[in-house]
């Protein structure tokens, strides 16, 4: 399977402030009653974007000036909580192609990488700098350069970090592991044969 080499993502950004934004907030569980991922995009952050009565709350991603943004910025421990891939799926289907945060919860990070969504870490002050630039000019183009590990915006840039295995997978077009895993099938059978419990049903 030939996958795209994701070396950088460019587009407009939107800052969703806060730490510990959990997967229930990213996609509330009631929207997971589905057998396909299609349509999850509109439910991204649903309960924060709407009052209990369903009226819009003016959430950053709904502000007209941020329409079409493709890069999401947030705080620390983004994506904590459940293992639901519905969370990065909703982010992707809502049009986002990269997430910049101070750091990420483990399972969310892996799920996002597998979908080809770079999740990159930046210092809080640097995220604030980018957020300020977006606030000043919502149309400003950001470039999340996964290969060079920096985010460029206007004349400025900030440093970012990313776990090397994820960075390697993204820039070399092997972020979805299924092809590599299938290539290893003979070795899988050999490893399984050494483990007695694997033969038992």
């Amino acid at each position: 399977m030939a996958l795209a080499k994701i070396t950088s993502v460019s587009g407009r950004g939107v800052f969703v402030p806060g730490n510990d934004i959990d997967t229930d907030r990213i996609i509330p569980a009631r929207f997971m009653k589905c057998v396909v991922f299609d349509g999850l995009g509109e439910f991204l952050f649903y309960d924060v974007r709407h009052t209990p009565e369903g009226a819009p709350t003016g959430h950053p991603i709904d502000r007209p000036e941020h329409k079409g943004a493709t890069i999401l910025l947030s705080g620390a421990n983004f994506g904590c909580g459940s293992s639901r891939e519905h969370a990065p799926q909703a982010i992707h289907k809502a049009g986002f192609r990269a997430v910049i945060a101070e750091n990420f919860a483990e399972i969310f990070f892996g799920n996002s990488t597998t979908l080809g969504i770079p999740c990159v870490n930046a210092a809080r002050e640097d995220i604030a700098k980018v957020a300020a630039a977006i606030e000043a000019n919502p149309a400003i183009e950001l470039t999340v350069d996964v290969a060079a590990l920096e985010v460029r915006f206007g004349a400025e840039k900030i440093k970012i970090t990313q776990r090397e295995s994820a960075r390697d997978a993204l820039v070399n077009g092997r972020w979805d592991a299924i092809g590599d895993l299938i290539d290893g099938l003979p070795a899988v059978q050999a490893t399984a044969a050494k483990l007695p419990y694997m033969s038992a049903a």
Partner: protein
Amino acid sequence: MSAQPKSLFEKVWEAHSVRKLANGQTQLLIGTHLIHEVTSPQAFGMLRDLGLKVLMPHRTFATVDHIVPTNELVEPYKDSLAQAMMDELRKNCAQFGVTFFDRSTGKQGIVHIVGPEQGITQPGTTIACGDSHTSTHGAFGAIAFGIGTSQVRDVLATQTMALGALKVRRIEVNGKLRAGVYAKDVILHIIRLLGVNGGTGYAYEYAGTTFDGFSMEERMTVCNMSIEGGARVGYVNPDETTFAYLKGRPYSPTGDAWDAAVARWKSFASDPGCRYDDVVRIDAADIAPSVTWGINPGQGISITENIPSPETATSDDDRAGIIEALAYMKLPAGQPIKGTKINVAFLGSCTNGRLSDFQEVARYIRGRKVAPGVRAIAVPGSQIVALQCEKLGLDKILAEAGFEWRAAGCSMCLAMNPDKLIGDELCASSSNRNFKGRQGSVTGRTVLMSPVMVAAAAVTGVVSDAREVFAVN
């Protein structure tokens, strides 16, 4: 013993390593794959799109838990989406030859309760499931990962997934827990101490005399909430307690194979003197009955403490977190949490929906009544737990006290079924997450605590110290 002392994590990792992948990750063999209705249908869909089969259907086990109504046994369910997910799982299991513990088998339940009670969960194995509370299975000395749907696809198709090794933090709890303090309080204490993201990148090895003395069910309660502390994996080294629990279970080895298995299981336990990336020591006597006051499981206090106030915050983040949490929870800063009015009491979930949880509650609640105006439900974690409770008459004791005795499922832990909070109801809950909206109402409020503390809150109508309510000493 090998020359170089190793931790259980390292040994299990090595035994299941298939090969190194180009990006530096490991192709890791997953011995046991547990699936359920919420995170598997899309994975089966991807499998069909790619024209792939389930590589090892005999190592794949399914049950249904998140969406099943706990007060409705006859299909079709009123919720057509729930019925569609049920039908989809049934179809996928039939088509790909996967064993399905459907409701008709009498073995259905929450996936993290079914695996252990069937003897599928075994020491020295790797387990994956599309659910973050898969860490529960680590109680047996397994390395158990919560995974996303694409990884469910990977494991279905190849019985492996791509993963980087974790660091290991040993968390030793030593000594005897004080009266009225439970395994739930131990894990809430650990999360409060180390933070909700303190475990990112780590596997937690729980050890020490407190864990040595714990039953398997208590160990499961602690391992279950590892992910709430950011640790994807949590485990306890296997010992005689583990083997005694597994003996005679449907999927446990028998005869000579049993002896061989026990010898093998023992060999996976961490070697004395092995290297840990971090060690944390906790005195059991420092742990009190705990409750959460905020919107993540790390925002907890002992029942005798006051609700934090922004003025006492230790950092700007902490202050912002307190302000946000108190606004959502509608709780007064600096006041005792004890006495906070509750509307709902929920007993159950993969954290605390096992026999010993209901036994302990029944022991104290016998002859007491749920306070007027409190909606109380007790939901066994599996059909087998339900049967065990019913044989002991625990269902009757709970029902006489005013708890509704339900059928097995995830119920009000995550509200993907009809069991939900309404409006800003406050729920005393034995579950694992107090996130905003977690229990099904966008303004619903969750206070996490041990099952006995839930019982105390239920009978008094307010968050209470179970030691006072039930004269525990």
